């Protein structure tokens, strides 16, 4: 490969990634050379600027046809743009939360790393959403994962932090192995790692042995990826890690990392496995045949997440289980594979981003103030800080899927997708809705604390600017997309051309 070829690539489509990369480099250098006395929060704002820059450049890329560079390993199609939007917005909000993060031990010495590791993880996630090749996909995934491991363990002197990082690494390692093992079989049967090439190959598969092997590959890949999504059976790390990690990291894991996981899974499933015939040439895709299997996973995830959440006393653990359950809902989308798959996934992930990050912002504020993560710390929040309590209530209502919030429209989308297909997924929808009702118990349990219980002590909250902005944005978005979802949906319809370029 010579310079000419290198220059002939349309690097422009990678601008957002370059901006992030640049920010990472800049931040790490600055952190290295800046005197210790300078407040590292400055780096946070710089990083945020980087993310916003990437966001702007991404927006300018909207409407570009599907393009790929670097021998089809990096592609920018509507799917990538749409989901990168979510990743960037999520990351920006997490950054805002992170700038207001304080610990007892103090974070000053690692605050710099804190920021650029976030950016590195974000870069991984973005690479995943744009990758057109198993290798880049894997690299993106690992960039995200490894950065996350460090982020979880970043409070070096905190026992919980260490422990959760350790658990995360081990579980992550195992799951990575599973994914890779599955990928190796797919590669073996197609001889290529390029996703679209693979799709072209597998369509022609006739050997039932090979199809069988691909089934096994699917199984292993999915298991491995369920780690990233925190869905059953690889969900158990989530509560411990969420609890032990710093709150912004938890927020990051529950939103950005999860979004990346779904991006990855949709890429692999839809491109490769949707094209594998189940019996031979021209028969029903393997993926459709495995719908029931996916449904089982989704159901198990929803049930486990919602039911175990009932017993939680620690707010972060509670939200860990809650986000396991939410991942279950998202799996329903994947399972149903309707014509609305991308819209629904995108909308729900977007809604989830706002409601969950908003909730985590408040959780950080409250737990930081109280020095404890027990749910009872929320007691009397309505008296102490009515705005916070109402905002939290809105986020919780949205998570619970109550009308007027984005979460409801998202759920509506999910039901729609699951029921519009033939055959309809009645059972799955029923389970989803039943577990949603179960979730009322713990969601409203938090509400009860905030509104019904008296506060132990009357302390006024000082709302840091960063958190205030996050809560404000999330609140606004949660209600806006609940009341006027057409804004988001029309945006999706007009700019992304029905994701029709996904397979091109």
């Amino acid at each position, binding site marked *: 490969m010579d310079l000419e070829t290198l220059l002939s690539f349309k690097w422009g489509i990678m601008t957002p990634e370059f901006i992030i990369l640049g920010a990472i480099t800049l931040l790490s250098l600055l952190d290295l050379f800046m005197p210790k006395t300078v407040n590292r929060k400055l780096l946070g704002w710089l990083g945020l600027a980087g993310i916003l820059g990437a966001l702007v450049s991404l927006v300018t890329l909207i409407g570009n046809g599907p393009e790929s560079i670097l021998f089809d390993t990096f592609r920018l199609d509507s799917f990538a743009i749409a989901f990168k939007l979510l990743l960037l917005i999520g990351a920006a909000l997490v950054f805002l939360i992170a700038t207001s993060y304080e610990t007892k031990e103090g974070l000053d010495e690692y605050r710099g790393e804190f920021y650029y590791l976030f950016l590195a993880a974000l870069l991984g996630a973005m690479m995943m959403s744009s990758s057109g090749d*198993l*290798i880049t996909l*894997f*690299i993106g995934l*690992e960039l995200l*994962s*490894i950065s996350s*491991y*460090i982020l979880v*363990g970043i409070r*070096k*002197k*905190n*026992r*919980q932090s*260490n*422990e*959760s*990082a*350790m*658990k995360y*690494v*081990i579980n*992550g*390692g*195992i799951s*990575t*192995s599973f994914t*890779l*093992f599955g*990928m*190796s*079989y797919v*590669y*073996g*049967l*197609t*001889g*290529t*790692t390029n996703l679209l090439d693979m799709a072209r*190959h597998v369509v022609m598969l006739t050997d039932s042995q*090979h199809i069988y092997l691909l089934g096994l590959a699917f199984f292993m890949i999915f298991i491995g990826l369920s780690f990233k999504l925190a869905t059953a059976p690889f969900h158990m790390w989530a*509560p*411990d890690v969420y*609890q*032990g990690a710093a709150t912004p990291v938890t927020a990051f894991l529950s939103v950005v990392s999860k979004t990346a996981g779904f991006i990855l899974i949709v890429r692999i499933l839809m491109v490769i496995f949707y094209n594998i015939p189940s019996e031979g040439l021209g028969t029903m895709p393997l993926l459709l045949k495995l719908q029931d299997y996916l449904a089982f996973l989704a159901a198990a995830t929803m049930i486990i997440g919602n039911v*175990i959440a009932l*017993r*939680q006393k620690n707010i972060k*653990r509670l939200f860990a289980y809650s986000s396991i359950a939410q991942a279950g809902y998202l799996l329903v989308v994947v399972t149903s594979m309707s014509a609305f798959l991308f819209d629904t996934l995108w909308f729900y992930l977007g809604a989830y981003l706002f409601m969950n990050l908003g909730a985590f912002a408040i959780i950080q504020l409250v737990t930081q103030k109280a020095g404890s993560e027990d749910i009872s710390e929320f007691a009397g929040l309505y008296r102490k800080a009515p705005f916070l309590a109402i905002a939290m209530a809105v986020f919780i209502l949205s998570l619970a899927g109550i009308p007027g919030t984005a979460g409801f429209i998202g759920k509506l989308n999910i039901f729609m997708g699951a029921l519009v297909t033939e055959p309809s997924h009645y059972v799955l929808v029923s389970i989803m809705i039943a577990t949603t009702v179960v979730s009322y118990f713990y969601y409203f349990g938090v509400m009860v604390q905030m509104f019904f219980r008296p506060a132990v002590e009357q302390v006024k909250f000082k709302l840091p600017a960063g958190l205030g902005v996050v809560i404000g944005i999330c609140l606004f978005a949660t209600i806006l997309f609940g009341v006027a979802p057409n804004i988001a949906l029309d945006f999706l319809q007009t700019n992304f051309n029905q994701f029709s370029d996904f397979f091109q």
Partner: protein
Amino acid sequence: MSSVPLSLYLALALILFCIGLYGALTKRNIIIVLISIELMLNAVNINLVAFSKFGVMPSITGQIFALFVMAVAAAEVAIGVAILIALYRNRNTVNIDEVNTLKN
């Protein structure tokens, strides 16, 4: 050069993978656990390399993939050991079953 059939490579990889998994799930010492994970990743490498030579459609990509996997595995273990050191400083143990303060 008599060629070993692909299936044997695959079987070897599978066995290796299972051993790794077993080790990761049963060993107390975190170092051993990390090594077990390494074993699982190496099983993948065997698969990839075998496929790239004897697969349905042999290509060089598999070997490149294997290189990436090695690199990533190294990074992962490095991080794992780093975290382990931090943990050891705080707890004075490398036994995984003693790391259980976070639970329901």
